[in-house]
């Protein structure tokens, strides 16, 4: 259980406190380790195309879950606690050699050059430590195993720094930093998702505008830590950027190829306008062509099934628009707000009272903490 008490007021002191260690009990650690890591069968059953052919992660179930990113709570200051995540690192000692004496994690989330020592869970191959990290951030880290630095052998997320060095990476909830896509890719993606969602109907547009304007800065800050980009419709592109960086990394390649295809298609169809600024009708046309599977000018050698990409995009878009905002979409809970605004009658101010059972400050439930 987390016992850390943090009382602070602004982002600077948050940065200062990042990396504080919390105690989690063994059960918490083993709850993840048993299902995802423990096994004797080393078939590569968890590779859906996201791993290289020799990557041992293919034998691990949902390797992306590590390090574990969880919510945080303390009874003294709930509102402040809501700005934090608990990040739990788990290192599994290799079976084919003696267990290491010392394992630690070093990373940008903790004070510079400070290695956080990881404790061994008794009678198991697992070493662990849990640190508090603010929401909305991206960090790099490495393990230090008996003095040797190494990448996290479980977490597939890695990033190459400017100096060429490769580090393991994680991001906390409500993150809006781009991880998977270039700016231009985000722009086209945003247009594509807009067309799928109901919000870009004229009525939907009006609603979003009013809704965003009605939230003052403080409300945004409290309910949606991580400063959402309110200029982007419901943040779905951001949700997808995070989803393909982690849970559905195997689909990153679909986006990379297809966004590139769409860009060059639009360039050819309308050379004078940036692809993300071509008129709505062109997106509608493209959409219908993709649905039919027959897109004139599409490079089928590069990607043979544009309809599949559309289907994928639709599932991701709907999920992002209506999932909990911590996943990076549903910005400002605008997806839910859209439904709760749209559906009401004379007797009920809303017929989708989503805030009633969700945690404060996002929701209004007096007991449930998220």
């Amino acid at each position, binding site marked *: 259980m987390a016992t850390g008490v943090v009382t602070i007021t602004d982002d600077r002191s948050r940065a200062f406190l990042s990396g504080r260690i919390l105690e989690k009990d063994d059960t918490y650690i083993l*709850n993840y*380790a048993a299902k995802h890591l423990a096994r004797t069968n080393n078939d590569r*059953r968890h590779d859906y195309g996201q791993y290289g052919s020799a990557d041992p992660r293919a034998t691990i179930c949902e390797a992306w879950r590590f390090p574990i990113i969880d919510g945080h709570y303390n009874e003294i200051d709930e509102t402040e606690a809501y700005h934090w995540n608990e990040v739990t690192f788990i290192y599994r000692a290799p079976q084919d050699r003696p267990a290491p004496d010392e394992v630690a994690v070093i990373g940008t989330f903790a004070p510079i050059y400070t290695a956080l020592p990881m404790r061994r869970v008794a009678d198991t191959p697992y070493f662990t430590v849990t640190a508090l990290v603010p929401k909305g951030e991206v960090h790099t880290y490495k393990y230090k195993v008996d003095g040797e630095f190494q990448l996290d052998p479980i977490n597939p997320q890695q990033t190459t720094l400017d100096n060429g060095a490769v580090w393991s990476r994680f991001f906390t909830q409500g993150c809006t930093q781009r991880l998977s896509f270039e700016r231009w890719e985000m722009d086209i993606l945003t247009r594509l998702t807009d067309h*799928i969602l109901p919000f870009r*109907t004229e009525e939907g547009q009006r609603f979003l505008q009013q809704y965003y304007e009605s939230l003052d800065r403080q409300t945004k800050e409290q309910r949606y830590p991580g400063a959402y980009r309110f200029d982007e419709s419901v943040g779905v592109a951001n949700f997808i950027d995070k989803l393909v960086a982690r849970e559905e990394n195997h689909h990153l390649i679909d986006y990379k190829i297809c966004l590139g295809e769409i860009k060059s298609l639009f360039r050819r169809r309308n050379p004078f306008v940036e692809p993300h600024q071509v008129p709505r009708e062109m997106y509608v046309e493209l959409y219908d062509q993709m649905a039919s599977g027959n897109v004139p000018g599409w490079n089928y050698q590069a990607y043979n099934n544009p309809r599949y990409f559309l289907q994928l995009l639709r599932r991701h878009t709907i999920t992002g628009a209506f999932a909990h905002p911590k996943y990076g979409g549903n910005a400002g809970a605008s997806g839910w707000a859209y439904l709760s605004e749209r559906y009401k009658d004379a007797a009920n101010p809303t017929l989708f009272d989503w805030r*009633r059972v969700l*945690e404060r400050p996002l929701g209004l439930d007096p007991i449930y903490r998220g």
Partner: protein
Amino acid sequence: MENQFDVVIIGSGAGGAPIANVLARQGKSVLVLEKGPLFRTQEDTKGLSDFKRDELMATGGEKRIRVNDVANWGESYYSSHVEPDLNDEPHVYRDFDGRDRATIEGYTAQCVGGGTQLYGAVSLRFAPDDFRLKTLNESRNDIRNDPNEDVKREARDWPISYEDLEPYYTIAEQMIGINGTRQNQLKPASQDFYQKPLPPNPISRFVEIGMDALGMKRYRTPVAVITEDHPPSGRKYPGGDAAKTGYVNRYGCPLGLKSNTWVALLRPVSNLPNFELRPNCTVTHLGMDGGGAVRHVHYRDAGGTEGTVEGKIIVVACSAIESVRLLMLSAIRDGEFARRIYQNDLLGKYFLTHCFGGAEAIMPGRFDKSISMDSDWATDFCARREFLQEEGLWAGGAIYNNTSDQCLPISLARTHGSQDIDTIWKSFVEDTSLTGDRLAAFLDENFGTRLSVSFMANQVPLKTNRIELHPTIRDKWGLPSAYIIKTWHPHDRYLMDVFAEQCAQILRFGGDGGKGQYPVYEKGGLYQAENGLARIANHVLGGARFGTDRSDSVLDPQCRAWEFDNLYVTDGSFMPTSGGANPTLTIQANSFRVADILLQRL
């Protein structure tokens, strides 16, 4: 670490936990080994719960089937955070085309509390006639769609009657914590421990009207969610509508208001020195001692390390498919175990689920369905003997409405056109017309307007419906996976059609104030689903049935394996027929009964 116990119980769900609770309170030393994690409530952690009100926990990111040798290799699946991973621990079934496919159906939930963590918590008793279907059908010759008279041949009476089980139903209802009403049930009760139900969701008014118009006597569905303080488990009810969250079926309850077996039965004894729970430990096989007793329980702990414990009594309660598999895996390792467990050829045979299905309509008006539990109204109309005679049915069932389904936006989309977990998202993904304005129109039409009524009825037991070990496919421990071979009897199909029509009638009469013309959107039975052979409705029963005749059953009337002195099986696998209602309360009641038997011998 202690490694000798009076009782070692494998599995902490409906079949295992009642025994653990009773024996621990009576001072016996009890170990519960549970494969899944111990997910905690807010109260347990004094912080956050491991369960969240979060749609992506019920159905997570896309994964792909990568189990060799299955025909659905490469297909997408989306599992919840508490189901086993399909690639790691596949269940395999043989499909219509004779090819094998992996399925996530047939798992309940893999965590402390088992299926009761995720269940809809509908906690009906079986009807007295469900216990004597052989007697009831013996002299009938009006059973439709049964050309070979299989029903007469295969129907079985339970070795215990409703009256035998009744006191234990009462104990279960008291100990678990259930809200509902009693009047109009066809299931007599000696005592009433139901808590007071909360007001129904307004959309359920249509069901009320429909049932009344059809003369179907109704009652508030007993649901295992507390609505008042519950002294036996020490749980407090926060008041008001706190339990009506919409995050019910397929969600664990962060507040512990849903009466899963962890909060209701295990947590209350968890501080006793004679009780131990080891979560994250998968039992791989059982071993005999030199004499005629099962003694050793072998497992893999969270680090994958092998461990062994000993029990004077061993209780297997892994949910039916996994229990049968564990017994079969033990038989592979130990010849003496094999000789005894295969004293006849019935282990794994007569695997059962339920005849299940219903009807759905888009109702007039819109409702906030998220202010709900899983069900509001139920009726035993179709469990009456007159009804069975009129319709030429061998057995009856229960009908109830579902209130919370599709009440949240993502679940509306991902279950659009597909209700089960193998085909989730599929129809929505393929229906590319739902976009922009048309998606808005889809939401307008369906959000907060859909109402479904379900039935749950007996399936004809067939020896050919069975669980085996798969010849080639193995799980993450290198052990053979369960292989499920089943089909629907023609009478099952007929029965599902009859029951679905009854459900549709309720909506037709409910939707237009009793005239019976309201349009019904969809109706049917499980057998019509694309993957109708895999579908199990989360109800995994039979495969080790109990009975009085050792040549006709795997377990004796005490749920002890014939030829073993100390091996008991108490999950749903003991059932010789599947009962005309959701099974869990009956599994729990029977488990309390077995606990009494064990107390007498310890």
